[in-house]
Structure formats: C-alpha cells, structure tokens
C-alpha cells in the first residue's frame, strides 16, 4: 500500500515536469503526429503515378505514335516531352525533368511490316529505385503488348483461333498473388515501418532525457526522496505517465493507419494492442538501459539517436536483412525496431499466429527487462554524480 502511495507521488511529480517543460509536449505529441501525417500523406497514392517520361520517336508513323499513346495511358507514366535525339533525352534525365524515355529508331514500322524484327529501346534511371523499377515495368509491358499486337494480326491472318494465338504468344502464364498487399502500395509498406521507427526514436530519446535532466537540473535527489530512496519505485513512478502517453500515441497511430486508411492487416485487434504495448515498453527499456550504461545526458542521448537512426536501416524492410553480411545479420538482433517489425510482419501483416514469431517476442521482452541490469548504477548516479556541462 505504501509502495502504491509512493508511486502515485512520483507520478504526480512527473506529470508536473511533463507539463512544465515544453520539450515533452513537442517530442511526445507534436513531432510524432507530424511524422505520421508526413509519411502517410507523402505516399498517399500508394504507388507513384504519372511519373514524367520522354519519347525519342525517330520513326514518327501512326504505329509508333500509337505506342507512345499507349504508354501515356498507363497509370505510372506520363509522356511529357519528345526529343529529337537520345543525347537530348539523356540530358533531360540529368536535369531531372524526366525519369525514363522510350527510343523508337527510324524505320521501325517499315521493318515491322517486312518482318525484320526491329528493335526499340527504353532507358530508365535507377538512381531512384522505386521510379526506375516501376517505369521499367510499364515500358516493358508496352513493348510486349506492341509485339503481341503485331503477332496476333499475322496469326489471325493465318487462321488461328484466339486461344491458340494466346498460347503461342505466351505458352506459360504467371498467375501472381500478392499476399496481403495486392496493390503493391508503398504507403502501407513504408509507413508501417518508418512511423513506428520514429516513434521509437522519440521514446528512446525522451526516456534518456527525462532521466538525464534530473541530474542536469539537480533534481535527482528530490526525485529519489519522493520515492523513499527506492529506485525501482522511483523509476516506475517516473515512467508510468510517459508509458501511458506513448501508448495513447501508438494506439492512435494504429487506429489511424489500420482503421482509417485501411492499411492491410490480417491480425486480430488484440495483436495490434499487444504489438503497441511491447513496442513502447521495449523502447523505454532500451532508453533507460542506455542511460544506465553511461549516466550522462549527452552521451546516452547521442547513443540513443545514433541507434535509432541506424535501426531504420537494420530493420531490413527496404533492404532485407538476409541480403546483408553475416555479422550484420547477427547484429540486427540488437535493434528493438527489428523485432517490432518482424512481429508486425508475421502476426499483423500476414496474420500468422504469434507462435511463429515467438523469438522476436522474446527478444522484445528481453529489452523490456534490460533496465534491471543497470538500475543500481542509475541510483548511484542520481545520488552521487554532478552534472558537468
């Protein structure tokens, strides 16, 4: 009973701090909401659409023009310019006006009619991977379709049925099933990693910050005194209100993306609740641990921010962990975001039971428990260290 009373006192004290220092309001509410809005609105289309492409049509016949028109009709590409030569088209890519171009050499139609298999080319820049890959797909489809159209005409003239023509042109068909994200939406695939990653960054930083400022503003002894010098009570009391705010934020994010924006999720709502809970607690655990490891405000915050930024790469969502070197694959276990992402991927996105990702769950549990290792050191620091600017 007395313990509860102490926790309550420390919590009240912490609430006062949270309200008085504007930094908390910005980092726990304003900035996280801003990143949420930023990423979901940036990739609102899901896939980039109407990306500017150019055409070098040296043939300039009705056939080549219809090819260009068809390219324009695709969702991803928009023909914005015609060039007299490849050199000029390439220059316009370098000037960032177009991302790709189609080159139709002179005599294409003539050769096509004569059955001499003319060759068209498309050039696309891979300096932006997303636009490069998507435009490549469009341009490839155009060329295949153009080819098929001509082949179809010849074969029909020879008296084949449509099914036969189809089979001849494409004997083996690939039937693609994109599990859980049939729209290939980049929004649902990037925002679900980046926003939680940045929320975790804030949790890391604020956890270390709120401990470090006790030293910095010389209130550490007061804090411990409020908890009767019991560091566990002091820590719980201090982080309880923060945990609640973070949970509110995380659940607000989950509600927004999964129920308002309808990002794909096959897991149950309970899984989302559990995911949010372990995300917040593991990140807090890491932040407290980082401070305990080096009880200096600036060092622990530096480590937290470097770790958080690095975890956005080590999470392996854009570039898979399995493509990294072996040592890095092992290191990826040290990043809470990695386990969060795997848990999300297995049990929310694909809707498999939690059992399939139990080791990632266990890893997050380990992060939650990490402050135990350093709690004594934190107490010692609070009682004896003096802040040096």
């Amino acid at each position: 009973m007395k313990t509860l009373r102490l926790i309550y006192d420390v919590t009240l004290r912490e609430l006062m701090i949270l309200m008085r220092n504007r930094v908390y309001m910005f980092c726990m509410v304003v900035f996280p909401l801003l990143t949420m809005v930023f990423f979901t609105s940036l990739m609102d289309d899901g896939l980039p659409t109407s990306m500017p492409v150019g055409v070098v049509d040296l043939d300039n016949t009705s056939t080549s023009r219809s090819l260009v028109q068809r390219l324009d009709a695709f969702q991803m590409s928009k023909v914005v310019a015609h060039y007299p030569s490849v050199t000029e088209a390439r220059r316009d890519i370098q000037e960032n006006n177009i991302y790709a171009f189609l080159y139709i050499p002179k005599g294409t139609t003539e050769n096509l009619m004569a059955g001499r298999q003319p060759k068209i080319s498309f050039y696309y820049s891979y300096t932006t991977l997303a636009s490069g890959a998507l435009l490549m797909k469009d341009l490839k489809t155009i060329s295949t379709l153009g080819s098929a159209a001509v082949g179809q005409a010849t074969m029909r003239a020879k008296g084949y049925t449509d099914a036969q023509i189809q089979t001849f042109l494409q004997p083996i068909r690939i039937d693609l099933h994109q599990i859980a994200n049939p729209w290939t939406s980049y929004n649902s695939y990037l925002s679900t990693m980046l926003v939680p990653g940045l929320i975790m960054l804030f949790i890391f930083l604020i956890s270390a910050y709120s401990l470090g400022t006790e030293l910095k503003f010389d209130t550490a002894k007061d804090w411990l005194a409020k908890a009767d010098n019991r560091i566990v009570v002091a820590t719980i009391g201090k982080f309880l209100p923060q945990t609640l705010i973070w949970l509110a934020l995380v659940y607000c994010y989950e509600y927004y993306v999964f129920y308002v924006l309808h990002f794909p999720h096959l897991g149950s709502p309970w899984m989302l609740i559990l995911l949010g809970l372990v995300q917040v607690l593991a990140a807090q655990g890491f932040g407290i641990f980082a401070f305990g490891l080096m009880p200096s405000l600036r060092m622990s915050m530096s480590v937290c921010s470097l770790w958080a930024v690095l975890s956005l790469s080590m999470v392996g969502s854009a570039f898979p962990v399995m493509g990294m070197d072996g040592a890095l694959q092992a290191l990826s276990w040290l990043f809470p975001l990695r386990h969060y992402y795997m848990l999300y991927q297995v049990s929310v996105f694909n809707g498999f039971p939690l059992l399939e990702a139990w080791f990632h769950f266990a890893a997050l549990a380990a992060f939650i428990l990490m402050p135990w290792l350093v709690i004594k050191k934190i107490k010692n620091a609070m009682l004896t260290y003096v802040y040096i600017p």
Partner: protein
Amino acid sequence: MSIYRNSFRRRIDDTFFIWREELKQVIKDEGVLIFFVIVPLIYPLLYSWIYNNETVHDVPVVVVDQSHTSLSRQFIRMCDASADVKVAYYAQDLDEAKSLVSRQLVKGIYLIPSDFESNVYRMQQGTISVYCDMSLMLTYKAIFQTAQLVSMQMGSELQTKLGGHYTSREEAIAARPLDYADVAIFNPQGGYGSFVLPGVLMLILQQTLVLGIGMSAGTARERNRYGQLIPISRPYQNVFRIVFGKSLCYFMIYALMGAWLVVVVPRMFHFPQLAAWQPLLTLMLPYTLACIFFGMVVSCIVRYRENVMLLMVFISVPLLFMTGVSWPQSNIPGFWQGASWVFPSTFGVRAYVRLNSMGASVGDVSTEILILWLHAFLYFWLACVVYGYQIYLARHDAFWRFVEMKKRRQK
C-alpha cells in the same frame, strides 16, 4: 581611443580570436566531437557495409509441384539456377507451403498445378501460380521477376516446337515481331546502396553540422554564467566578426569531412562516381556554407544543448524522402515540396546525385547550385540577425544587472 578599435587589423584579430575560441570549445566538447568527427567518419562506413551487397540473391522459395512432369521440373530447375531465387523446400500442398512462409523460412511459393504440362501440349496456356510475401519489396521482385523470366524463356522454347516455322530466325520473329532492349542507366545493376547512399552521405553532412553547431551553442550557454550565447567581452561586440569567426571554424572541419564524405567514401565502396573534383567543389562550397549558416540559425533557438538532438535527429528521415531519392520528386505533394525548400539538403542531395551518379554537368544542376548560394546568403543574414539579437540581449541584461548592482551599493 586608439585607431585600432575599428581598424582592419582589429577586425581580423577579433575574428581569429573567436575562431580560436570556437575551435577550442569544439575540441574540448566530446558531444560536439562525436557529431563533428566520429559520426561523419563512422556512419558512412557502417551504411556502406549494410548495403554493400547491393541486391538480394538466392531468395528462398518453396515449390508445390503437383504436375511432376519434365516441364515442371525444368521450370523448377531454371528458377533454382537463377541468381535471385533458391528453391529451398518442396511441399505437398499449399497449406504446407504456407506454414513455411509463416515461419519465415521462405518468402514465396511457386505452385505448379497438375494439368500444367498437358495444358501446354494441348495448345492451352499453362499457368503457374506465384504467391509472394509482400512485406519485403526486394524479395517480391526477385521471386516474381525470376518466374516471369523463366516462363518467358521456356515459352520461346515451346514456341519453337509449336510454331512450325522453317528457320530459327523466322521463329524468333513470329514470337516477338518487335524486339526491345531495356537499358538501366546510372545504376545499371539496380543496387540498393548505390541508390540510397549518395543521398545519405550529403544528408549526414548537414545533420551532423547542425547537431554539432547546436550542441556547441548549447554548451556556450550553459558555461555562461547568465545562460547567454554571447559572452560580454571585447571581441564579441560585432555580429560579423562572430559569424565569420565561428563559421570559419566549422568550415575548416567540414572541408575535410565533406571531402571524406563525397569523394573518399563512394570510391572506397565502388559506388558510381562520375563527377570530377571541380564540379564537386562547385557544389560543396555553397552547400557547406548554407548548412553552416543554417545550423547557426537553428542553434540560436536551442536553449539546452540536448534539445537540438530532439529537434534535428527525427527529421533526417523525412528530409531524405523530400529529396526525391526514396520517393519520386514528381509525386511529392506540393505542400511538402514547399517545406523541403527550407533545407539545404534538399538541393544538395539532388545536385550531388545528378552530378555524381548520373554524370550531369555543372550546367545541368545550375538551378540547385544557385538556390544553395541563395540559401547560404539568406541564412548568413538570418544568422547575423539572430546573433545581433543575442548581443542585444546580452548587453540589455548586463545593463540591468549593472543598474541593480548600483542600487544595491547605494543602499
């Protein structure tokens, strides 16, 4: 008062004094050192290491072969032989295959139905179903594109058998009357590192500079007895001397760091490096200056040294997206486009990627370079204004402290 007070010599002396003080502070402050030296040195290496394999190879897939024919086995063999896909398991049915996906052992399923071969030889399309785990775009691409490629290769072989043409040339033309070539330029292998790192390198430069300058300013405030950025001492009387002196210190450090980031690191890891040093210098000079003055403006907002971390670290990722490297620039909503103009990194990254990865000339990126000079100029004046205000504050406070003191004396 001697002539020295406003003489040319005096200005130079003051500037150098401030430069020396700032340099001393940077070296003494481990927090600043981390951001000025350690991070720019280590981070690029770390990132390059993460992405040094560029693409994923041998993505594991599971095959459900219900056909058990030579044709289906050929498909499996050809997929396995490709660089991108590895057939890791065989499963009896789709459910078994799904459980392998759920355990993360494979990233996709190839399902070959029992009527596959008979369909093909009956002049009907044979269908192969491909199921992809969509949580990773790169593995999805590898699995899907391999299946597509193999099916096309096998398709053209079949066309040869089915077509009844006389020469192979005839067959080729019948199957594909219009030939095409796709040419990936500027990053031919589609490497992930070559695509993302140039942007990251330039961004590291801006972010570490702003963090370092902000921290150094925070320290200056904390060391100061009255929590002010500008100490009341003779050399710190003139805005221009302060701004010049401090920026000179940062510029010296970042001349080295910048060269390391944009010249040495890409070379070490064999990323595309098409620009010579002259165009790079043309870009880096305004970019570094713009970042320095931008950092100095930001640093004036910072009351405590740690707050700059809370402010600057999280926007790194949005900044990277706003440059148009991760997400095509043409698809960034207008509002965020506008917001991105505030930051030098937006134009610095764009210009660097085009110069270095795409082989553009300085003329091709002249707009970006011009904007960077404009940034440098505007942020320089803004820095002067905010530092002027800081001087005013310092004097103002000092005056009132003086008045207070006088009053107390008189009592």
